[in-house]
């Protein structure tokens, strides 16, 4: 059997409730193993999974990078990384020792064919020594320019198929392309080597519990679905605000910008999950079919509309949380006359029966006053004003806010009478995961790595999804490029974006939520 998606095992001891599925023993090969993502997220996530008994014995990691390390230096580097970054605190020595026995370093350059031939031998040797059955996950944690090369090399060395009945999967980090053309091109190259069923395009936002809970919240509670449409919803606001600037990623960011870095992936995901129709089943294809339908239903953006439905910003010097912050153009790796946006606001319409006429406002930016991600659904106001003592504009509409981070939870704002007075005031009903379920949520990367090893791609982006989102947003990039240069910087670090963003939403008679 050389099937790319092996049939699930029927383990009779797994019958019944409450035993978590654990993946079959496998080797995770990390390309870019000496990089930031590996140390900060991937290996801490894998260690925590092992620690919580979610990984089988025999599980192994192979790191691939150029640095002159050997297995023992690599293990030492990862040990320090896990100690510094794990949510569970420093490692337990005995546990780490057992986990580290399965960690190996493979030194090679991405463009060196001999390196892949040796990799194939190495993997076969590990299969034999640790009984990993030919099961592999290739994780591309590398600069995006390297993706195509690595994929081609894996194909050329037969590493896209597993020996002996195992499975092979590949996880590709963001960004997936930088516009529609490059995303299509990358998809073509990847799919020339791997089957779509082997490909896991990661968007770590989908690994967050609250994001997954959005679907549960919408589709498991009978009271929200009937009002989740144009009859009751005035508009939606989706915000992903970061308080940090570009830090040391200026070189990368200056070629990307907020639209590519945040909107195309994270905010688009939040939008589709908010707007999608109920899927026929909770499985990878049914869920992703519905998400793609939302993207296809969004009114396409004509080049002449770009300036009208978007606002761009770039931060200048200022201060965030009481600390001085230098301007974007002063950051390392950033051009002194950079036209790259660090803030975007835009308005989209989902033109289907459920949402016709309801604007979805999206905004995201860097160096904003605080780090917060949320989806807010603002409902229409009460039809008549019954309470004569209170001026109309003082009764605030109902807002349902789903906070993704920090402090995940759901709040519902409604009006209530102040006891003993003829006043109406908004009050909020608050539900927070952290306090209602006093259990720490797993890290997004833990969930996603495990899902991939288990062969569940529901929380990963499918080919048509990534292309549909680029098809939607590429005209904005083109419109901006064709337009006049912007007068950047136009907001101070520590402000809620440029003044134009407030004017933009005020034109529709609405305002951004104060967060």
């Amino acid at each position, binding site marked *: 059997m050389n099937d790319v998606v*092996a049939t699930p*095992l029927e*383990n*009779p*001891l*797994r*019958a*019944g*409730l*409450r*035993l*978590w*599925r*654990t*993946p*079959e*023993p496998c080797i995770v090969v990390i390309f870019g193993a000496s990089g930031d993502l590996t140390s900060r997220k991937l290996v801490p996530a894998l260690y925590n999974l*092992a*620690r*919580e*008994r979610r990984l*089988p*014995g*025999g599980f192994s990691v192979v790191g691939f990078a150029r640095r002159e390390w050997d297995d023992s230096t690599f293990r030492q580097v990862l040990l320090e990384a896990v100690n510094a970054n794990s949510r569970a605190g420093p490692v*337990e020595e*005995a*546990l780490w*020792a*057992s986990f580290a026995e399965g960690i190996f370093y493979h030194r090679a350059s991405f463009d060196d064919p001999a390196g892949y031939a040796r990799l194939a031998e190495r993997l076969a040797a590990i299969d*034999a*020594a*640790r*009984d990993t*059955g030919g099961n592999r996950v290739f994780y591309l944690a590398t600069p995006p320019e390297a993706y195509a090369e690595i994929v081609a090399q894996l194909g050329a060395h037969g590493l896209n198929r597993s020996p002996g*009945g*195992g499975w092979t999967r590949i996880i590709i980090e963001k960004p997936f392309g930088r516009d529609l053309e490059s995303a299509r091109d990358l998809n073509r190259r990847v799919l020339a080597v791997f089957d779509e069923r082997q490909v896991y395009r990661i968007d770590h936002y989908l690994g967050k519990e609250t994001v997954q809970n959005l679907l549960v919240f919408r589709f498991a509670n009978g009271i929200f679905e009937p009002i989740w449409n144009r009859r009751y919803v005035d508009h939606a606001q989706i915000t992903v605000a970061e308080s940090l600037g570009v830090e040391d990623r200026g070189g990368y960011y200056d070629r990307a910008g907020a639209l590519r870095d945040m909107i195309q992936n994270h905010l688009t995901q939040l939008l589709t999950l908010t707007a999608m129709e109920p899927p026929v089943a909770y499985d990878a294809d049914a869920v992703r079919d519905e998400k793609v339908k939302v993207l296809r239903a969004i009114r396409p953006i004509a080049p002449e509309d770009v300036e009208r439905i978007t606002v761009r910003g770039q931060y200048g010097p200022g201060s965030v949380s009481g600390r001085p912050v230098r301007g974007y153009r002063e950051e390392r790796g950033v051009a002194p006359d950079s036209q790259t946006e660090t803030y975007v606001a835009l308005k989209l319409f989902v033109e289907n029966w459920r949402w016709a006429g309801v604007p979805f406002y999206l905004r995201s930016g860097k160096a904003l006053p605080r780090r917060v991600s949320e989806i807010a659904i603002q409902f229409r106001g009460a039809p008549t004003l019954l309470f004569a003592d209170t001026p109309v504009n003082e009764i605030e509409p109902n807002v349902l806010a789903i906070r993704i981070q920090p*402090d995940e939870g759901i709040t519902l704002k409604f009006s209530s009478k102040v006891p003993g007075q003829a006043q109406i005031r908004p009050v909020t009903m*608050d539900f*927070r995961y*952290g*306090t*209602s*379920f*006093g*259990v720490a949520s797993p890290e997004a990367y833990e969930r996603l790595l495990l899902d991939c090893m288990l062969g569940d791609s529901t929380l990963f982006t499918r080919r048509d999804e990534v292309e549909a989102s680029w098809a939607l947003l590429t005209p904005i990039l083109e419109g901006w490029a064709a337009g006049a240069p912007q007068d950047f910087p136009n907001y101070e670090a520590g402000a809620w974006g440029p003044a134009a963003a407030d004017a933009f939403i005020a034109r529709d008679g609405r305002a951004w939520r104060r967060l």
Partner: protein
Amino acid sequence: MNTLPFVDSATIEGELQRLWQETAETTTGGEAVTRALTLNLIARATDLAMAERISAVAGELVASHPNRTLLAICRPEEAPPRIEAWVQANCLLSGPGVPQVCGEQISIDARGPVTAQIASLILALLAPDLPVVLWLPGPAPFDDPLLTRLLGVIDRLIIDSRDLADPAGDLRRMAAFDRDPGTPPGGARRVTLSDLGWAALTPWRELTAQFFDTRPLLPHLRRLDQVEIGYVPAGERLNPMPGLLIAGWLAACLDWTPLEEAVSVEGATLRLHLRRPAVGVGPRAIRLVTIIIAPVGAPGAAPGLATLRLRALDGVSADFHVQRADEQGHILTSAEVAGHVPVRRLTRCVAPSLAELLAAELRLLSRDAMFSAALQTAARFTAGLESPGTSTGA
């Protein structure tokens, strides 16, 4: 926490209301206190020490299952006869800027003959429209008068098989209750039985199941012919219950059927004799399986399972072993199969607290069908057997 002057449900309700009002006023810093209830938890204590333990667990449980705890302290043998009650809020410590979530607790202390009235008081104090769970810790839950009185209103009965006095007899009673709780006629509710002793076995089951998630090792599961289960007894008392439940679980999953003479006892060691389904044809197809359950003694070790070993001795040898590595919560797993490299791994498995076990049981919305199957099978082993192990202490 004042003891109420006299006890009826209206007074207690009034007291609860006052409690919440006070809590709202005294909480400073502008952070609201959120009162949250997801279930009624009726817990019975037979003395004050047990009552304290239950209170501590109820407080911890707020984190995952904010609830109204009704703590019934039943002391029928004690004098003077009287009933007292008091209320308290069980709040979760919260960080700055985070609202505090609280459940509530009503404690009722009854002494002497009036203890018989406690059930009616509890009935009047249940928060409406929420599930009702009855937790009966201790050695004899099925003889508890509270169980008989409340059988018609509860959704779930929680016991702890590790506490039971007569493992063989109690195992049969658990199985009988699980088959038919004896809900009064007309009671639409099906009472579910939960066992914290079973919940404590989850990590062991998980680690055992993990061996067979790999394709090459899975077939060996059908070839096992010997299982060795070692447990650390609690003090002087031998309670092979965890071993019997694990044996029941394996037998239920793998279709092993007990032979006529299913159990033999040698000192403190139990041997179970089963037949496993045929693999292939011929004289070798029908095989017997032996399960050996024995106390293992490491001085100072915590009671519970200590080792679980599954072996195929006939033909290709295979040996799957899960065992405690130390008393700090580490478990060593190893798979040694002829023709495969041995795979050993150390993992973490800290024994869950009572509150964690209770929370795990409450998380299940429905019956745990696997528990039922394991329990029924385990009870069949003990048919006709007099209290295995209990007579052969120390």
